[in-house]
């Protein structure tokens, strides 16, 4: 028998940058180390936070005899799907009332993107047209590329988004790409709190984007991972999604409840589908079932139950909104304080972008050398892009971080 493995030439894949960063942070012995890498919420004590409402609902579930542990239907828990879609589109959404909104419960936001991508690669823009370009923002969450590529799309391209020089949205570039791309291209839009830049289009800019997309028949695929987290207000954070729906767009919206429910490890996601009419919706859902059947077959129930119970109870819903405000509020506080401290230190450059940007992340504008300095000399871990997770800041480390940024900017070119 051959002693050679059939896998003998499998190369090592590059580690996932953000998790490698966390690993390096964990291995670092420096007492004042700071982790500004991974996108998860942390309290002022630097700890992960189980939302009080989640704790409450978990207890309810564990003591509920009537809950059975059967497989969930393939498309997921019905209560979860409908309430999750309502959160994105609004209770009074005309699209919901017209019965043309459906959803698929998925394994986190990633799973929702995956299901949407798989569907589009089979049925969008004529059948099996995997040459249809898929546009993702430059920069974007690094996993967007992999999800669409693995779903079979051969042409995943960037659209202009971040202007490094002016530290803001390259709106002209964005519009330019929208005008010049092939018709029917798919565009992945961040519903709010753009990852990694924290820079969102204004309402006027969204209106212009929508106009071009409608005119050029581009497909709208929203990625909504931070609803509630950006401004602290669910409706405000969903404005862009709802605006597009009001214009009559058909679209997909991949929702994640990892951040706004703190359910990172229960993998709670929802792909909301807005179709032209009920008949189209029915057909889409039936095909989605087929796709789900070959991926995970039945989604896990725990996280979906927690979200469904919370969203469907007025008291719990209010408590949840409060918990979300707490998280968003802490982030806003850290933003304000960081900017103030940098200004007080007289750190060269403008730091308005820290408070103008929104959500968990800030694109600091530090260049790779400066980032390396931060990591190696100051033991402050951030992404090579200069992205920091504001949640990693707290009252105990913010001075040190501000000073370090100051040092980096003044000492390192």
């Amino acid at each position: 028998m051959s002693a050679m493995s059939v896998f003998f030439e499998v190369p090592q894949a590059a580690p996932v940058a953000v998790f490698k960063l966390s690993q390096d942070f964990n291995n670092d012995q420096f007492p004042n180390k700071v982790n500004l890498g991974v996108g998860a919420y942390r309290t002022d004590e630097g700890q992960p936070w189980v939302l009080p409402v989640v704790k409450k609902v978990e207890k309810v579930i564990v003591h509920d005899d009537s809950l059975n542990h059967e497989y969930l239907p393939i498309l997921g828990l019905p209560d979860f799907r409908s309430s999750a879609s309502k959160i994105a589109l609004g209770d009074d959404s005309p699209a919901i009332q017209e019965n043309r909104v459906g959803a698929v419960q998925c394994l986190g936001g990633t799973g929702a993107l995956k299901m949407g991508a798989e569907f589009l690669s089979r049925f969008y823009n004529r059948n099996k047209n995997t040459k249809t370009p898929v546009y993702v923002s430059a920069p974007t969450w690094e996993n967007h590329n992999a999800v669409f590529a693995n779903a079979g799309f051969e042409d995943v391209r960037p659209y202009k988004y971040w202007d490094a020089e002016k530290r803001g949205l390259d709106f002209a570039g964005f519009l330019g790409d929208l005008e010049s791309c092939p018709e029917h291209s798919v565009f992945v839009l961040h519903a709010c709190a753009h990852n990694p830049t924290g820079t969102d289009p204004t309402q006027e800019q969204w209106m212009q984007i929508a106009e071009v997309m409608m005119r050029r028949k581009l497909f709208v695929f929203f990625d909504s991972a931070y609803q509630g987290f950006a401004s602290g207000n669910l409706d405000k954070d969903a404005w862009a999604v709802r605006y597009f729906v009001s214009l009559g767009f058909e679209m997909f919206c991949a929702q994640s409840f990892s951040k706004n429910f703190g359910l990172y490890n229960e993998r709670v996601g929802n792909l909301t589908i807005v179709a032209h009419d009920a008949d189209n919706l029915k057909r889409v859902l039936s095909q989605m079932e087929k796709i789900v059947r070959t991926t995970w077959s039945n989604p896990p129930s725990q996280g979906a139950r927690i979200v469904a119970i919370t969203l469907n109870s007025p008291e719990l819903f209010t408590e949840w909104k409060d918990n979300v405000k707490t998280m968003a509020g802490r982030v806003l506080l850290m933003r304000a304080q960081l900017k103030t401290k940098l200004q007080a230190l007289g750190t060269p450059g403008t730091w308005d972008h820290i408070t103008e940007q929104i959500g968990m992340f800030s694109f600091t504008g530090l260049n790779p050398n400066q980032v390396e300095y931060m990591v190696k000399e100051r033991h402050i871990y951030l992404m090579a892009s200069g992205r920091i997770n504001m949640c990693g800041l707290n009252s105990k480390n913010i001075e040190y971080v501000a000073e370090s940024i100051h040092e980096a900017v003044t000492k390192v070119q």
Partner: protein
Amino acid sequence: MSGPGSSPNEKVVKQNEDPGDPFSEFTNAHVPAGSPETRLLSAFKNDTHTRKAYLAGRGKSAWKTFELRLVRKIKQQRSTDPTSRPEYPSSLGLTEFTRRATEVALGKSSRAIMEDRVLGVQTPGFTAAVRLGAELLRHWYDVCAVWSGPVYLSSPCDDSLAGIFQAAGIQDIRDYYYWDDTQRNVCLEKLLEDLSKAPQQSVVVLSASAHYPTGADLSQNQWAVIANVIMRRRLFPFFLLPPQALCYGDLERGSWPVHYCASQGMELLCAQSFSHCFGLYGEAVGHLLCVLKQNSLLFSMESQAVKIVRSLWAQPSVGGAHVVATVLSNPGHLIEWKEEVKCIVERCMLIRELLRERLRLLGTPGCWDHLTQQGGLYCFIGLNGEQLEFLSKKRHVYLFTSGCLNVSAINSRNLDYIVESIHLAVTTSF
């Protein structure tokens, strides 16, 4: 009996060739026929007959006691545990879970484990484990050869398997002879014939125990012969181990073929489910393990598995895996769980005995020995399509379309009616 890889009828509701059609982006999506199970369940739900019986479920009812006692206790502990952290788990899943899951499939003293050449990945359920295995094969099976199949599935097999491999990009799906209608058992001769003709580097999907849908398993001697052919022909075994302990009530016996092949130094994939044998159906607890020939390959395979997982579901959910890991690592819990499994298995065996005995007493034509020769939750009754239709339409007794039934759904209240129904199905001329 459904053959593997058969595609459902697709009804084109509205087809419009023009992509510029203003009506809908989704015009090209037509309605596939619903899955056979969905239709069956639907028919059963709409059936108003008082004696209707649904024997095509997945067996949750068997677990009521266990679930109420131990599982709930563990879940309660977790919900009050101050050290449990809500953050992203590794893409590979919970370490304690993958460790135990691997041990349960290969045995604690497995050489492959001791030599650290086993990759274990937690997945959201059994289907996901098969999918991940399929993706790993498609991307990395013999990099030089640009492998794209074939994959051999047993005839019959779970009708969702072909679709999973196809979704992973492997189109060349074939079948090998397994169940023989006349013998009402596995026909080893024809099976070996098919495997001997398979091209080198074919992947062969094998049920380690409790074959679905037939419930007919191979003996240890037969496995040894099959393993030989696999090695000689340089085929790659992909084991399915969904209800591991539920066949014989014995974890080791259920995974024996996997132990054996690993002990022969073979590389293999094995997809496991812990949904069935822990009554955790809603929690999607699966595991994929890959036994490698060399430990030096482990890191690269692990990194590639992570990369693939990132594009599928990023990370698995932890709740169910935590329960399984807790049970498997605690001797007290383990005993309690094994007792529960034993009860369920004994009950299934009893029902099979009763079925066989009652049919014999009624003088139902045919040989029913296979009912007690098979093991596990599922039983291949051996009825044809017309007989099955008779059962559901005239007697309101619903079996899987493959002719398989869930033994644990039979109880003292419906046993007589079911036996009578089977008798009528067999004796009525169509």
